[in-house]
C-alpha cells in the first residue's frame, strides 16, 4: 500500500502525517497569534525562494514555531534534493565559465 505508492510517487499522505502537519500549523498559530493563512503564505514564499537555488522535496517541508520560555522560534525544515544547475535550461558544457566571465 503506502510502500508501493511511495515507489511510484503516488504520495497519499497517511492520516497520521496529516494530523502532524495540521497540528504544527495550528499550534504555530496558537503559540504566536500568526494566522494559519499567513503561515501558509509564509511557508509557500520560503519554499519558492529556496527552490530558485536548490531543488527541494516540497512534500516534506515543515515550517513551525517552537515554544520556548521566552522566545518563539520559527523553524523551517526543508529537505534538499540537489542544488539547481546555474541556469534553468539545459545547456552545453562550459556555460558556467561563460557566465562568470561575462560578469
Amino acid at each position, binding site marked *: 500500500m503506502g510502500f508501493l505508492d511511495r515507489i511510484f510517487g503516488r504520495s497519499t499522505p497517511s492520516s*497520521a502525517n496529516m*494530523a502532524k502537519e495540521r497540528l504544527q500549523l*495550528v499550534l504555530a498559530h496558537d503559540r504566536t497569534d500568526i494566522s494559519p493563512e499567513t503561515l501558509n503564505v509564509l511557508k509557500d514564499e520560503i519554499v519558492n525562494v529556496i527552490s530558485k537555488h536548490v531543488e527541494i522535496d516540497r512534500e516534506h517541508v515543515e515550517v513551525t514555531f517552537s*515554544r520556548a520560555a521566552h522566545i518563539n522560534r520559527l523553524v523551517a525544515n526543508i529537505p534538499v534534493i540537489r542544488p539547481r544547475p546555474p541556469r534553468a535550461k539545459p545547456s552545453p558544457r562550459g556555460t558556467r565559465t561563460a557566465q562568470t566571465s561575462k560578469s
Partner: protein
Amino acid sequence: MASLLPEDTMGGQVITITSGKGGVGKTTATANLGVALARRGQRVVCVDADIGLRNLDVVLGLENRIVYDLVDVIEGHAKLRQALIKDKRLPELQLLPAAQKRDKTAVTDKQMIKLCDDLKREFDFVLIDSPAGIEGGFKYSIAPSDQVIVIVTPEVSSVRDADRVIGLVEAQEKPTPKLVINRMRPSMVKRGEMLATADVLEILAVELLGIVPEDEAIITSTNKGHPVALEDHSPAGVAFTRIAKRMMGEDVPFQVPEDSEGLLDRFSRLFRR
C-alpha cells in the same frame, strides 16, 4: 532517592494530573497511579479537585464510604482525618473526595495550597485529579503542584489542548510538565493511522513520563471500581505501574506497548490483500 521532583520539599510531592481536554483519562490515570504507588509502599492521597463532577471515588470503588469532602475540610466543617477515606485493599492509599453539590468557585488557589501543605506532611504523594478546561478549577489544581503531569491521547484535539495547558503551566513558573500518552494503539501507529509517540513528543517538546496502551480492561475495571493497577495482568495496569516506578525515581526504560492487534486481525488482513 531521586524522584520526579528534583528539589527537596518538606514531606511529600504534590503532583497535578491535568490535560485541558476532557475524557482523555485524567481520573483513570490518577486512580491507577495512586494504586500503583501505594502498592509499592508509598503513602498516597488522591485528591478529587473536580468539584461538582465527582468521579475519582467511583473509579477507585470508594463511593459508598464518603461522609465529608474537600469543600467541607476547606470550610472548616470537617477535619482532614474525617474526610479522608482509607482504601481497604491498600492501607497506604487514601482518597479526598470532591464535593458533588458545589461548584468550582467554592475553592481558591490559596485554600488549595494550604490544604496540600497539610497533606504533604502525612503523605509521600499528593495526586490531584484536575478538572478539564483551563478555568478556575484548573488553576486551583495547578497552584499547589510541585510537578504537573499532562495526559494526552494521540489525537489532534487532545494534543492541541495539551500544548495550551503546557504553556499555561510554564507561565506560572512551574517546572515544565511531563507527558503521559494514553490510549495508544500500536497497530494503528504501524499503519500510519495514528500519531506516534515521537510525533507527539516532537510537537509538544516535553519530557515523556510514560505510554499507556488502549486497553478494554480499563472499562471493565471501572465498571467494578477495581483499578487495573491493583493487578499485573492488564497491559494498561503494567504501563501505569511502570510510570509509578519512574515517579519514584527508578530508571525504567520506555517501551512501545505490545501490539494489541490479535492473531485474528492479522489473518483477516492477510486475506484482504
